[in-house]
C-alpha cells in the first residue's frame, strides 16, 4: 500500500507560496527526510499558527499535490481560520510540518495495465483534485495509462489543470455552473469515460478524491461496472496520527462486519467498495 516512510515533525522553509485561483493557494516546501518517500494520497499535517503560539491549536491536514526535484507542494482553499492564517505565510518563513501521514493510493495491482490495453480513471472534485495530480506523476513514471476527469464549482475554482496540460495530459472538465467544460458533475464525466472504453482502453480502476457525496457516487458507478475504486476521504482530524479517534469512518471488515477505520491511519485512501456511505 502507498507509503512506508516513518513520519517526522519537520521545520521547513517555504520556497514559494502563491495564489493560484481566488482563495486557492499553492505552498511549496523543501522535500526533506521521509517526505522523499511520500506516496500519492498521503498527507502532511501543518501547524497554522505563529511559532510558539498555541492557537489555533490543532494542525490541518493537506494532501501532497506534487513532488518535483527537491520540492513538494500542497494546494488548499481558504475555508476557515487555520487556512486563512496559513495563507499569510511568506516565502522564507518556516512552517511546522508532520509527515508523511496516512496510507496512499495502491497502484501496484495495475502495473501491467499498459500491456493489457487498460487504463485508470482519476476523478477529482474541487480541492480534492491535487492528490490526483501527484498520483498521475507516479503513474507516468510507472508507465501506467490514465485519463483525468475533474469537476469544479465554476471556472475560477479550477486548479491543477494547467500542470496536466503542461505535461500533455488533457483533463475532461465539468463545472456546476457551466462556466467551463461541461455543465454538470464529475460523475457525468466518469460515465463518459467508461463509455469511451472502446477507443481509450478498458477502465481497470477508478481513483477519486473530492466531496464525500461525489466519492460515494464514484464508488457506486465503479462497482456497477465491476471495476475497483480507491477513494481518498476527508474528515475532521484531531491528531492526524491515529490516536484521537476523531476521524473514524465506517467500513466493512472481514466477513462483512462493520467497523471503524481511522481516516488518518487506515486511510485517507480506502477501497470504495468497503466504505459504508451515509451520504
Amino acid at each position: 500500500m502507498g507509503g512506508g516512510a516513518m513520519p517526522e515533525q519537520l521545520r521547513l522553509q517555504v520556497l514559494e507560496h502563491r495564489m493560484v485561483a481566488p482563495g486557492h493557494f499553492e505552498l511549496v516546501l523543501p522535500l526533506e527526510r521521509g517526505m522523499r518517500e511520500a506516496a500519492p494520497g498521503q498527507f502532511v499535517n501543518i501547524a497554522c499558527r505563529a511559532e510558539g503560539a498555541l492557537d489555533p491549536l490543532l494542525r490541518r491536514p493537506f494532501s501532497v499535490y506534487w513532488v518535483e526535484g527537491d520540492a513538494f507542494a500542497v494546494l488548499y482553499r481558504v475555508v476557515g481560520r487555520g487556512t486563512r492564517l496559513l495563507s499569510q505565510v511568506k516565502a522564507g518563513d518556516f512552517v511546522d510540518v508532520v509527515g508523511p501521514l496516512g496510507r496512499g493510493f495502491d497502484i501496484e495491482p495495475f502495473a501491467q495495465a499498459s500491456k493489457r490495453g487498460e487504463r485508470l480513471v482519476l476523478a477529482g472534485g474541487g480541492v480534492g483534485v491535487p492528490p490526483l495530480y501527484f498520483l498521475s506523476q507516479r503513474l507516468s513514471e510507472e508507465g501506467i495509462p490514465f485519463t483525468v476527469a475533474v469537476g469544479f464549482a465554476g471556472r475560477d475554482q479550477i486548479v491543477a489543470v494547467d500542470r496536466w496540460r503542461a505535461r500533455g495530459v488533457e483533463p475532461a472538465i465539468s463545472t456546476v455552473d457551466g462556466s467551463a467544460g461541461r455543465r454538470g458533475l464529475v460523475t457525468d464525466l466518469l460515465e463518459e469515460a467508461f463509455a469511451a472504453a472502446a477507443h481509450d482502453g478498458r477502465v481497470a480502476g477508478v481513483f477519486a478524491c473530492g466531496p464525500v457525496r461525489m466519492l460515494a457516487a464514484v464508488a457506486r458507478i465503479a462497482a456497477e461496472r465491476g471495476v475497483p475504486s480507491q477513494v481518498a476521504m476527508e474528515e475532521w482530524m484531531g491528531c492526524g496520527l491515529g490516536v484521537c479517534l476523531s476521524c473514524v469512518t465506517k467500513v466493512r471488515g472481514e466477513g462483512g462486519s462493520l467497523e471503524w477505520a481511522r481516516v488518518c491511519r487506515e486511510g485517507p485512501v480506502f477501497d470504495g467498495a468497503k466504505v459504508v456511505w451515509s451520504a
Partner: protein
Amino acid sequence: MSDGALRAGEGMEARAVDLSVRIGDVVFKKPVMVASGTFGYGKEYAEFFDLGLLGAVMVKGVSLEPWPGNPLPRIVETPSGMLNAIGLQNPGVEAFIRDYLPFLREFDVRVIVNVIGKSVDEYVAVVRRLDEAGGADAYELNISCPNIKEGGIAFGVDPRLAAEVVGAVRRATARPVIPKLSPNVTDIKAMARACEDAGADAVSAVNTFLGMAIDVDAEKPVLANGVGGLSGPAIRPLAVRMVWDVYEAVQIPIIGMGGIAGLRDALEFVLAGATAFAIGTANFVAPALSTEIARDLAGVVQKKGLGRFADLVGRAHPGRRARAEA
C-alpha cells in the same frame, strides 16, 4: 548538591539529578508521563521516538467489552484547545492484552492502564483480567463516565460512589490504584479525600472540563454528543488550581495534567503539588514534546540547586517550602 552542579555545560551533572518518583510500590524512572486518550496504545508514537524516554504511558481507556464510541462529529477546535466526545471507543480488555500490551512491554517504560466501566463490577473485572495477564504496572481509574447501575450519576462527581469503585478495585489488586479526578465538581478536595480514604495510591488530576460549542449557522451543538470534554492549554490554569487544592487535601501523590504544552507548564503542576505530570492534548500537535520535556527536566532541577526532582514537588505552597527548608 555543591554549587558546582549549578554551572551549565559541565557534562556530568545530569547524572547527579535523581528524577525518580514513587507511587505505591512502583518506582518511575522519571515523572514524565503521557495522558490517557492522547497516546493510543503507544504504537503510533513509537514511530517518532523510543517510548523508553518517558516515565510512563497512560494508555487509552480499556473496558471489559469493546465500546463503539460516539457518532461524528467527535471533535471541535476551541480557543487554544479542543472539545472531544470520542465516547471511549476501545477494543476491550482481551484485544488490549492480545494486540497492544505485548508491544508496550518491549519498551523500558511503565504502563499505566486506564480502566473504564459502567459499573463497579466492570472496573473490578477489567483489573482482575489485567492482573491475571500481567504487564500492567498500575491502574488509572477513569471515574468520569456515567454509572448505569446508579441511574446515570457519574462515579466522578459523587465522593461516595468514587470511594466505592476505588475500594472495590483496591481489594482486587496489589498494584497501584490511581483514580482520575473529574474537574466537574464543586469540591475536588472532597473527591480526592474520598479516594485516599478508599485506598487509592495516587490521584490523577484532572480529566477534561465539560464544555460545549454551538454551530451558529446550523443552530445546534457542533458535537454529535452535544457536550464534550475541553482540553489543551485553555484549561491549564483551571487544572493547576485543582492540583493545588488536592495537594492541600491529601497525602498521596498527584499526577498533574491539563493543558501542558511545555516544560514550564509542567513545572507549574509540580510546584502546585504534582509528584508526576502527564502531557495530553499537546501530543496531538507536537508528537515528541513529552521527550523534549523529559530531556530538559534534569537541567531545571539542577539550576534550582536541587539533587532530586521530588524536592520540587509542592514548593509553591508557603507551608511546604518552610517545611522543606527547615
